[in-house]
């Protein structure tokens, strides 16, 4: 079996295994952790295969491309799958202590595994309609995870989340239909060939805008992000951590995929629009964040703001900028998931998510304060942590002058730096409110049964953040090669079209 198929089969098998022991929910966590461990091994194997031998592609059912169902991994996709597996494993361990028995009995682990399969499928598919199907696999599982438990806040958040995502799916599907009507194919590599051969590529711009709205809704770019901070703080911490890490980034990945492979015929308009949206996304996200006092709502607004940096890299469309986007993607997934996981521990220590009612956690748990400090400073872009190098790459790319927008890019660089400062400001706000100030009243800590299950994933993700910061050239070199593959999709197209 090639390196691609196990990445999808392992989470699927884990979900089936959980279903088979429906009556023994205590086994679900063990199966999920084991499954995620194997998934991580398969993902690393895929990455090594792509790293050594270039783009890997396989046609399921042996129908030749562009007719068969194609799975394909270039470096960007392989990196994303590895990060997905890391997050899957970390959150699976965290869930053992965080998810109550009721949710477990009603299939938490099953839908967790299925959602990770959907995310992986969306990264690995080589066909735009299959991407829609994988999105649906991911979405329907995420709907269940969001509503499982049926608390009042959850239901209120879920309705916003579900309806907005369904509208986005309908637009995505309509865009697929129109694209098929114009080009007669759905295979991404074949689409790249046919759109390049089109006499008037501007005619595709309307379709490109439909994809931009559909994926933009999922990614949470301006002005389509409002559902995100209205829903991500309502489910249990383990669920919101995996949502915050992975789901919006699937939208960003889909944007990167279609705007580097298919819609490159009218870049002054399409990528110019992305540039403007990136700036507005960064600013509106961070301004929303600084006014919040709920730990998880504050972090949710930061997701929006950080999405802006990734879209900025895509809009600039040079090798450095796209490398920045790829680097930002994997740095951000690790850091953001970690911050959400930490918000769960601080809630147990203080009994609340409200920053105003927290306090004194530095005295009560100095090690937790240090663990928060690492991802928080990384998010703010303080050297030598991973976030500094991610921001550095994006800002440097916008100042290099080889972009399509020599006038606009420096403005965006200035916005990016200012937003970085505001990010740091809101991280210091959490630090002051939750850790530094004296507690305003009696703290009501909840007993934690097996604390190491909560701390182990946090420590591991923080170690990865520091690790990326200590060896940035190693990771940035990979990101540069991934960006080269995105800018020159010849190898991608060749790998897909010759396989059978």
């Amino acid at each position, binding site marked *: 079996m090639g390196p691609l198929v196990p990445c999808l089969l392992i989470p699927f098998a884990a979900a089936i295994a959980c279903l088979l022991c429906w009556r023994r929910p205590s086994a679900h966590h063990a199966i999920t952790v084991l499954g995620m461990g194997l998934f991580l091994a398969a993902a690393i194997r895929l990455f090594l295969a792509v790293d050594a031998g270039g783009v890997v592609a396989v046609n399921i059912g042996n129908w030749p491309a562009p007719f068969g169902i194609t799975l394909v991994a270039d470096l960007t996709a392989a990196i994303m799958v590895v990060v997905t597996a890391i997050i899957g494993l970390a959150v699976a361990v965290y869930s053992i202590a965080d998810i109550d028995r009721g949710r477990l009995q009603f299939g938490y682990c099953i839908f967790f595994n299925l959602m990770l399969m959907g995310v992986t499928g969306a990264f690995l598919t080589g066909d735009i309609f299959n991407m829609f199907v994988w999105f649906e696999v991911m979405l329907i599982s995420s709907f269940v995870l969001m509503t499982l438990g049926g608390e009042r806040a959850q239901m209120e958040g879920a309705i916003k989340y579900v309806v907005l995502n369904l509208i986005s799916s309908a637009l995505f599907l*309509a865009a697929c239909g129109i694209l098929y009507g114009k080009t007669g194919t759905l295979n991404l590599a074949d689409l790249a060939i046919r759109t390049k051969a089109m006499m008037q590529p501007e005619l595709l711009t309307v379709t490109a805008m439909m994809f931009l709205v559909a994926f933009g809704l999922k990614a949470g770019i301006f002005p389509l992000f409002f559902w995100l901070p209205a829903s991500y703080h309502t489910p249990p911490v383990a669920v919101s951590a995996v949502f915050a890490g992975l789901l919006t980034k699937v939208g960003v990945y889909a944007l990167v995929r279609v705007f580097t492979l298919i819609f490159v015929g009218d870049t002054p308009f399409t990528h110019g629009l992305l540039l403007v949206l990136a700036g507005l996304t960064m600013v509106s996200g961070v301004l929303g964040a600084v006014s919040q006092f709920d730990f998880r709502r504050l972090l949710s607004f930061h997701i929006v703001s950080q999405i802006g940096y990734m879209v900025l890299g895509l809009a600039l469309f040079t090798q450095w900028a796209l490398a920045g986007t790829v680097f930002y993607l994997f740095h951000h997934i690790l850091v953001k998931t970690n911050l959400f996981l930490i918000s769960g521990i601080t809630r147990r220590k203080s009994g609340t998510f409200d920053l105003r009612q927290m306090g004194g956690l530095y005295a009560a748990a100095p090690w937790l304060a240090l663990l928060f400090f690492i991802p928080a400073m990384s998010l703010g872009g303080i050297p030598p942590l991973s976030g500094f190098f991610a921001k550095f790459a994006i800002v440097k790319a916008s100042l290099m002058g080889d972009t399509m927008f020599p006038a606009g890019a420096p403005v965006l660089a200035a916005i990016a730096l200012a937003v970085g400062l505001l990010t740091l400001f809101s991280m210091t706000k959490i630090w002051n409110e939750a850790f530094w100030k004296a507690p305003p009243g009696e703290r009501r800590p909840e007993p934690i049964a097996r604390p190491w299950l909560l701390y182990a994933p946090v420590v591991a993700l923080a170690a990865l953040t520091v690790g990326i910061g200590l060896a940035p050239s190693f990771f940035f070199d990979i990101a540069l090669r991934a960006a080269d593959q995105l800018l020159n999709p010849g190898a991608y197209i060749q790998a897909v079209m010759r396989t059978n």
Partner: protein
Amino acid sequence: MELILAVTIGVLFAAAAYLLLRRSIVKMILGIVVMSQAVNLLILTAGGLTSGAVPFVEAGQTGLSPAAADPLPQALILTAIVISFGVLAFTLAMSLRADQTVGTDDLDAMKGTDE
């Protein structure tokens, strides 16, 4: 025929947008249903309408004749219908649960988590 379908799709999308903007959850779900049907018709129309040429391979031939209808849009629609059916079942169950826990069908009343 394309014109009639194009107008129908437009009317369906408009109706869906109107329903989605209502405050009642039930009407909003009906809006999602109408919207997914509009998208299905859109795929059918965008894929090209061919009348009276079923996509069967004739005896003795190895491929479709060029005049035959394209079967792929219909396959896409079939997949989309199955998915939207599952999603509809979920949203109905969710609205029931929301009605039980929140006690209202009014979306404007669901601001408990927005501070």
